């Protein structure tokens, strides 16, 4: 059987790639995609830990289901925010969005 570390390594690399996307992208939609990648990596971690440490408890999977729910809610609200922002300012480029700057 595959060692748990391999799954954790894949999840860690996925997480940092998402993090890199969040930091390096300037487009709000692409930043949200990076956040989704990070949440997905966390889910992979949770499921791998469930499978390898406590497969008779479904708690790890329930946790992952809650994370999926929150990710869906976050994507819906975030994308609605970007649409409202685009209507207001005509861009989703985050360097040009400085409504709160005094």
């Amino acid at each position, binding site marked *: 059987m595959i060692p748990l570390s391999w799954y954790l390594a894949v999840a860690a690399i996925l997480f940092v790639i998402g993090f890199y996307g969040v930091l390096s992208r300037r487009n709000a939609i692409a930043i949200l995609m990076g956040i989704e990648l990070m949440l997905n990596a966390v889910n992979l971690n949770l499921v791998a830990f469930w499978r390898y440490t406590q497969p008779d408890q479904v708690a790890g999977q329930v946790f992952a289901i809650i994370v999926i729910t929150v990710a869906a809610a976050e994507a819906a609200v975030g994308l609605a925010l970007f649409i409202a922002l685009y209507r*207001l300012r005509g861009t989703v480029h985050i360097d040009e969005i400085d409504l709160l700057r005094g």
Partner: protein
Amino acid sequence: MEWVFFGLFGVLALVGSVGVVVSRNAVHSALFLLVNFAATALLFLVLGAQFLALAQVLVYAGAIVVLFIFVVMLVGNETVDDFVARERPWLRWAAVGFFLVFIAVAGYSLVMSGWEAAKGLADYGAVERVGAVLYREYLLPFELASVILLAAMIGAIILAARTRPPLGRPEE
């Protein structure tokens, strides 16, 4: 056999995520995101979590990626493919630095920890089992999640459906 599937789907997930980050076209990013989500669902299947694989395909690959593609379409692709942070190039190097530090720390802890595989998996990832636990032991978190979804739905409708003249647009 398990190694073959793990290697295949793991590499597919990594390729998808790299594609999300580096592709300049936002539609391509969303499609690479689809590749990543599908590969993760297959990894869930390898791990024995059938219900989660199903939910992953339905929610992530089905709903979220379609939502992303719709928004990219609405916002307009030509304003989307601005990839390079010309104003702050150090930010990318900070990201690379975080990447390396995280990989180093995670790799060290992974090598040092000796995780053993649990024995005797009795099909605990099946839909029936997960559903029973979800509706009995975790009923309150489940209902709270549905409240979160409802709030997000109402919030998204209010945010996106408002039609009023644009305010706060800077004078040009």
